[in-house]
């Protein structure tokens, strides 16, 4: 390739550049110029994101060292054995079935609570924030830079047996509650508390962009404020709601630390806990790999949906 620093492009370069310009690049850069910018990042992603997935598959369908019980990954697909994987999947439908079902119930409950509360807050701030909008935004963003573990730690101190919540209950002459002893309520509310900021901000971003002319038109045509909300605002925000639901529920499916910090009881075990336990138990390497693959497969459709909807949103703008 010619030196790209030459001030005067030659005729052929100029022509090629013009062809590219017509091809919507707009600016005259040598061919293959931008590929070089993306190469290091692409290589990194292939090495440390794609290859690890292949290793996981190879461990899942590989064998185990007969003495040390450590996984021996098999990288050649034609030597893969599916017995161990079938056994692990069997466990999902056997002893672990209840935990998988529980995870779905918890995630559905927690993300719908996130939606109802988060939509109300996002709607209020975007429509009636007024002069205090900046203050509201700072307060809404702040959970993002408070460590997740600190937020759980805070609730743990509040909810312990001699914590302030139980103090308050006894002050009101109500019986104390063992909040941290495997209460599903604590775990679900903990998930809501942990992930609702991820719901509010995208919803706010969307509601803020709604053209107010549409709402005014609704009002002009005789709809009451609540009718305008139900017939204009809410239908318009359907895609944003779906995307926000996906973005809060994906990490909930893989969450194990909220559960471990707020309950740590077999009564609230979720998918993340099963996976985490398998990783930390020696001799269960292949099983952990299978659980990872199962989780990935379960979440693939929502993930792809989210990617498609954000791409569409970008293209629309």
């Amino acid at each position: 390739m010619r030196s790209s620093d030459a001030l005067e492009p030659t005729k052929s370069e100029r022509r090629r550049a013009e062809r590219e310009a017509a091809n919507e690049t707009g600016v005259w850069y040598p061919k293959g110029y931008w590929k070089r910018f993306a190469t290091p990042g692409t290589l990194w992603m292939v090495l440390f994101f794609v290859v690890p997935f292949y290793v996981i598959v190879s461990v899942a369908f590989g064998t185990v060292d007969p003495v040390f019980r450590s996984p021996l990954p098999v990288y050649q697909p034609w030597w893969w054995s599916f017995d161990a994987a079938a056994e692990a999947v069997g466990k999902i439908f056997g002893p672990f079935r209840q935990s998988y079902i529980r995870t779905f119930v918890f995630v559905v409950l927690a993300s719908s609570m996130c939606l109802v509360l988060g939509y109300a807050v996002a709607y209020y701030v975007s429509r009636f924030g007024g002069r205090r909008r900046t203050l509201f935004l700072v307060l809404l963003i702040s959970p993002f830079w408070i460590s997740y573990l600190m937020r759980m730690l805070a609730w743990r101190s509040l909810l312990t047996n001699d914590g302030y919540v139980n103090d308050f209950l006894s002050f009101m002459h109500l019986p104390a509650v063992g909040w941290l002893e495997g209460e599903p309520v604590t775990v679900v509310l903990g998930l809501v508390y942990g992930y609702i900021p991820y719901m509010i901000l995208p919803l706010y971003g969307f509601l803020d962009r709604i053209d107010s002319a549409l709402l005014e038109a609704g009002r002009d045509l005789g709809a009451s404020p609540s009718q305008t909300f139900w017939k204009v605002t809410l239908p318009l925000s359907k895609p944003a709601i779906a995307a926000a639901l996906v973005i809060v529920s994906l990490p909930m499916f893989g969450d194990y630390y909220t559960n471990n910090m707020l309950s740590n009881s077999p009564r609230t075990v979720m998918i993340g806990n099963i996976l985490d336990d398998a990783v930390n138990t020696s001799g269960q390497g292949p099983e952990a790999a299978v659980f990872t693959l199962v989780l990935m497969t379960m979440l693939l459709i929502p993930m792809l949906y989210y990617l498609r909807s954000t791409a569409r949103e970008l293209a629309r703008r």
Partner: protein
Amino acid sequence: MSAPTTTRTPGRAPTRPGTPPERARQSWFRDPWRKPRVLETITWAYLAWSLLPVMLAIFMSFSSGRSNSTFQSPLTLQYWVGTGFEGDDQSLFRDPDLRSAIRQTFTLSFATMALAVPLGVAFAIGLDRWRGRPAKGANFLMLMSFVVPEIILGVTALYVVLYLFKFIPLGTPAQIMALVTFQMSYPVIIVRARLLSIGKEYEEAAMDLGAPPKQSITRVLLPLLMPAILASFAIVFADTIDDFVTVAYLSGAAESQTLSMKIYTQTRGAPTPAVNAAATFMLISTTFVIALGYLAYRRLSRGQSDAGVGGLASQV
């Protein structure tokens, strides 16, 4: 994580065009101009619920008792800097374990920033203009790494280090490798949003005036991208300081334990206010960096429509 848009001018909410005379006779509920009291209450209640526990946890780090759930006066700094009190209790800045955790936390954050942001910025510029099938694949990979739950990323990274890339030892190198993979998508998304909003005109002008490609990037494009690059640094820093899952899976010996791991293990045992001090210390560091990033962002994007918190928020 969306492109910056023009910020709304405050007060576009429905204004009162003269109070209608029959207003007094309407019931409160039917009044279209009534203030949204219910929504307002919900919003403030949510903010209190969201932030008060954290404030209490901060406050608890100044307690003088062993417990981190009941405050004991007087206010002290003994769990921050104290030595040799109440048996073997240790304070944040004296306990050798916690000190090593602080060091490890910052080492990882700075190393991740130094690698992930330059890689991500170049990746974003490349993806924005590189056409063709491979570019689409690279873009897909980047977005996938953004949405995949962290536990999946942590386990895959752990297994690749254990069984294939055995030359990367568990501990700091493996932690940095996984953190960079997980964090790279932030600069990419933020910078791409900025690229979309600045358009190609400035570069075209530079090239029309005779700037070679390299110069039009270093002297036109990069300065224009500076606010986005700074925002990326701040976000990657804040997110790495707080990271727990990835760091925990790839930790090796005791020296590779971070503050977040200490908080996690000690909270599940018998936490002292030193844990609260550690968490508060993390919060102070991230707040400081975010504030710094925000001030620089505002200075650099002065006079542009998307300056201010709204602009920054729309980039997150």
